[in-house]
């Protein structure tokens, strides 16, 4: 079952009914059953894998927390303090690390890597060694997301930043919770725990707000994202046939498309979760208002960025080996060089991994390095950049400069799309070649643009839709839009809700597609 089906709506409705019928204390059981059923629909074998995985994690985190308790006990019994205490804690920590943490992490990451790369590896083996291994890889739903959440949770327990969740079923719900399982947001289980297992009273306003958010998400996805994909899929599916502005527009359209798609999906799941009173983390905060690529990645796929920051960037940046490396560099090449190494290495590792997480092809590696390079450069050369601006008498605080920055950031993102969207590096190269092979502004008026999946009226819907989303986003930056609507009179509110609902039904891209020629001729 996907989020974009009538079945899902029915599913959420029924779950909500049961949720609020049952007493507050056991409401989370309903969520657990619903989530398990949701996952079951994806395949019972996949459900089995997830359950086993979650069991492994839970046992590991319980083992770690028990070790730490033992350590506390010993300290209390022996009454030691200071350096001895640190040493004892260190011993237990190392024990956990060696026997629990590392194996479990290897297991988790191993499963993820297997699911992602096994087939690719088989391909490579076939190509190089003509080894024909045919097998099927069962990829559990949302494995990239729940693996990261679990890894984060386990590390948090290890670092004593979070408590082990005692009740296995509660833990299972954290893993399986259906709004987040398919596309995130990547959860912090100790925060999610608070949300899920709090007693949620029936709050009519929250339920309405949740539904409204879902409506907005569906609108973004079905009216804008799916519509843009008609154009982009045509262009990217046949790059050789197009050139110049057609490709450029496809790249830009692809940038908007993926935003509408992903953020729309996030709105749907956050809205659905809100109906149950459970608040999920934001994954998007109007990224196209960013003034720098670094800021962009703090507003785009926020939970992923935070995950990488907390579990890769910081640990690497403060790890012993890196500090040693920096010290050596400082001794050999001076402080500036050391600073440079300090900046480059953690960022490089983070972005390499980010690229790999997003996709299995080489193009995603390049994609990750692309962003890594840009962010590294912008950090390293920040000082020089400011000097240049001063030289050119550019006032960085002015609004027009900020607009320039937003456009610049968007173009950087579009560049990223150019690397990722065509599917392979070869295609990206073709796209770049074709894009610069001619300048053809006449496509705007000679009809070419209107015969590639989107006609003139479709483009109007796209433009109006994008402007509308932009306006709503500006409002959202200032405050809650749903609150603002709620304050208005009932007629206006209802008009907005009906308008949104029917806009989705009318302009949404779905269904078997009515063939405008309801025309029959001849024969019978």
């Amino acid at each position: 079952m996907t989020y974009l089906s009538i079945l899902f709506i029915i599913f959420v409705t029924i779950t909500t009914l049961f949720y609020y019928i049952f007493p507050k204390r056991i409401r989370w059981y309903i969520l657990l059953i619903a989530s398990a059923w949701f996952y079951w629909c994806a395949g019972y074998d996949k459900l089995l894998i997830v359950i086993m995985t979650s069991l492994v994690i839970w046992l590991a985190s319980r083992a770690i927390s028990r070790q730490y308790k033992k350590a506390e006990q010993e300290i209390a019994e022996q009454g030691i303090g200071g350096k001895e205490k640190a040493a004892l804690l260190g011993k237990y920590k190392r024990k956990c690390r060696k026997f629990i943490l590392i194996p479990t992490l290897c297991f988790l990451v191993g499963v993820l890597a297997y699911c992602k790369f096994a087939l690719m590896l088989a391909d490579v083996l076939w190509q190089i060694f003509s080894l024909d291994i045919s097998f099927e890889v069962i990829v559990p739903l949302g494995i990239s997301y729940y693996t990261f959440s679990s890894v984060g949770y386990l590390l948090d327990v290890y670092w004593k930043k979070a408590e082990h969740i005692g009740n296995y079923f509660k833990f299972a719900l954290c893993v399986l919770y259906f709004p987040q399982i398919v596309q995130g947001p990547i959860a912090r289980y100790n925060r999610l725990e608070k949300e899920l297992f709090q007693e949620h009273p029936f709050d009519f306003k929250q339920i309405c707000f949740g539904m409204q958010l879902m409506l907005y998400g569906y609108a973004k996805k079905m009216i804008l994202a799916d519509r843009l994909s008609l154009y982009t899929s045509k262009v990217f599916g046949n790059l050789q046939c197009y050139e110049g502005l057609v490709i450029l527009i496809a790249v830009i359209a692809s940038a908007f498309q993926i935003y509408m798609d992903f953020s729309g999906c996030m709105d749907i799941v956050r809205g659905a979760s809100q109906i149950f009173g459970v608040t999920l983390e934001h994954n998007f905060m109007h990224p196209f208002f960013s003034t720098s690529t670094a800021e962009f990645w703090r507003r785009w796929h926020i939970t992923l960025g935070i995950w990488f920051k907390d579990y890769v960037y910081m640990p690497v940046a403060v790890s012993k080996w890196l500090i040693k490396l920096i010290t050596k560099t400082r001794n050999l090449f001076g402080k500036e060089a050391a600073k440079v190494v300090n900046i480059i290495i953690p960022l490089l590792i983070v972005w390499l991994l980010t690229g790999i997480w997003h996709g299995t092809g080489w193009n995603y590696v390049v994609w990750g390095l692309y962003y890594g390079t840009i962010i590294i450069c912008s950090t390293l050369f920040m000082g020089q950049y400011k000097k240049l601006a001063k030289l050119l008498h550019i006032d960085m605080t002015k609004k027009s400069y900020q607009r320039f920055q937003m456009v610049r950031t968007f173009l950087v993102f579009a560049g990223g799309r150019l690397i990722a969207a065509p599917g392979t590096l070869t295609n990206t190269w073709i796209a770049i070649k074709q894009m610069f092979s001619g300048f053809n502004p006449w496509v705007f008026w000679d009809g070419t643009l209107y015969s590639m999946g989107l006609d003139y009226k479709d483009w109007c819907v796209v433009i109006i839709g994008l402007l509308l989303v932009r306006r709503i986003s500006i409002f959202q930056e200032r405050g809650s839009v749903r609150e603002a609507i709620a304050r208005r009179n009932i007629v206006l509110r209802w008009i907005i809700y009906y308008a949104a609902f029917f806009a989705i039904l009318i302009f949404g891209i779905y269904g078997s597609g009515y063939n405008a020629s309801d025309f029959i001729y001849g024969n019978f």
Partner: protein
Amino acid sequence: MREEILQLLSKENPEIDFTISDELVDDGVLDSLTIVSLIGTLSMEYGIDIPYEEIVPENFNSIDAMAAMVERLRA
């Protein structure tokens, strides 16, 4: 100790005023990039290992907190 650290860090990051608040991390005065460079500086200068558990806002929210942490780790 406090003065030492304040001088050291201010030299490395002249544009940041470390005395402006007691919640440097929570108020956003220090972002993760800056904290990383602070950690690098402190580690190198005082020859200490800052374990990951110590990297919490409480330890970096003020110069005093940082000083206390360094003292603790040196011991």
